């Protein structure tokens, strides 16, 4: 426990050190605020934005896009992954195409989606769903394949049908990988919604970044970044929380690493 507390203190120290260094460099180097604002001015701006509620409607828009897209993408990934896992022929047929689509950066088709689905929320939901879908699908497929041969033999030896093997072995066995996929999907969903708004939107945090960036309100852009990371971290934290309780048997040393994606 001593080392655990030590790590926490160390982490906090790194953050504070980083902010202090940033403040000093901006201060001493006399860097103009429209290039890099000092963290203190970002703080002041954040306070102002929260008090005036400027970003609130935009946060709501982006958060709705993220959640709707995530729900659709994750549900589709699960459904498709389970179907493919239960029908090896389907997997053989579609697998090369999945790999092909995987190599394509999904955000690159965002402009097309804006043309097809308009400037409103729909196009952002579609982009978000699309980027959330693939990590989910790939992990679901890999998860169902990860059942150990000996365990499959064991189930068969004790008289389990195909369906009961799925229910009692393949599905729970796939859960850790499904949650890993969900963690990636959550992070991707935030990226998807923001990129979609960059390409063309009338509201949302990504849209506000383009607006404030154009006005050289760099401190304002930083406040949006703070809001976006708060959204990302909260969603990731929720998934993590559910995951820890659901797949309690998995040794989780890779805790923080997933955020690096």
């Amino acid at each position, binding site marked *: 426990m001593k080392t655990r507390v030590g790590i926490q203190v160390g982490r906090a120290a790194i953050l504070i050190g980083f902010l202090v260094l940033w403040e000093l460099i901006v201060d001493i180097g006399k860097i103009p605020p429209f290039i890099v604002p000092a963290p203190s001015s970002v703080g002041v701006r954040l306070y102002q934005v929260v008090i005036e509620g400027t970003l609130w409607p935009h946060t709501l828009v982006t958060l709705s896009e993220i959640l709707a897209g995530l729900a659709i993408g994750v549900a589709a990934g699960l459904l498709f992954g389970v179907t493919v896992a239960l029908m090896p022929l389907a997997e053989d047929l579609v697998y090369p195409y999945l790999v092909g689509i995987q190599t394509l950066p999904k955000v690159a088709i965002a402009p097309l989606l804006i043309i097809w689905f308009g400037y409103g929320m729909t196009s952002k939901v579609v982009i978000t769903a699309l980027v959330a879908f693939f990590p989910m699908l790939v992990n679901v497929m890999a998860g169902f394949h990860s059942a150990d041969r*000996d365990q499959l033999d064991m189930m068969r*030896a*004790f*008289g389990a049908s195909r369906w009961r093997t799925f229910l009692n072995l393949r599905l729970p066995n796939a859960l850790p990988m499904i949650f890993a996929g969900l963690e990636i999907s959550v992070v991707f969903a935030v990226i998807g919604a923001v990129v979609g708004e960059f390409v063309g939107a009338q509201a949302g945090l990504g849209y506000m970044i383009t607006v404030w960036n154009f006005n050289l309100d760099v401190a304002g852009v930083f406040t949006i970044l703070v809001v976006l990371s708060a959204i990302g971290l909260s969603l990731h934290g929720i998934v993590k929380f559910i995951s820890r309780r659901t797949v*309690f048997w998995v040794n989780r040393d890779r805790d923080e690493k997933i955020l690096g994606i």
Partner: protein
Amino acid sequence: MTNPHIRLVADKVAAPDGAPLIRVAGLEKRFTSRHGEDVVALTGIDLEVRRGEFLSVVGPSGCGKSTLMRIVAGLLGPTKGNVSLDGKPVTGPSNDVGIVFQAATLLAWRTVIDNAMLPAQLQRLDPATSRARVERLLKLVGLEGFERKYPFELSGGMQQRVAICRALSHDPSILLMDEPFGALDAMTREQMNLELMHIWSDEQKTVVFITHSIPEAVFLADRVVVMTPRPGRIARIIEVELPRPRTLATLAEASFGELCGKIRALLAPSIPGMAHL
């Protein structure tokens, strides 16, 4: 079914000694290797296992002993020949067989008792009866009080004990064990051998025990099947007439050492440098 002993004694009366419970006749198994070559894993296997007998199968890796067990278990089909359990030909896994693999293969998300009850659940046996039976088995292997633990909270030896209880949970007449203690350290392994003897005398099952350890094979068995590789065949079947119950003192007896030496000599030509085992 309230007292398993009574039922088992009744079984013994019903099936007179001499009628084999497991019969393997003219068994051959060929595989096609990845390079398209035809590999003979087993050939000319004839074997009869009496009811209540403890049979060890010993041989170096590649002699097909695991393949033999998988065929008896109904997990693999033979290329030639046939296998029957209690006179009925094997066409697939039977409910009258319990299996223990080298890996404990416990389900990580199930508690000890739920793992041990898995076969009974899959075969839709009465939950109350099978629970009582499993609780008794867990007690027998010293896992009383661990019923609510998860596999990751147990040592390797304890996990394998759960796997043994699981294999016996549905009260099968046959217990097949494929190098069950191969992954355990020497001390735990010795302990497990003693416990297995204890369980066997308590449960009176017919056991086929696959191992590559000669002393382990001799210590446990009524007969030892010695197999040689490429192609896998039975070199000799050796009767072990050491008195029971066997204890650690058995290991120090001259007749025990002689039997081990005899088997080692049979296997020596097939594996150079095996004499040290």
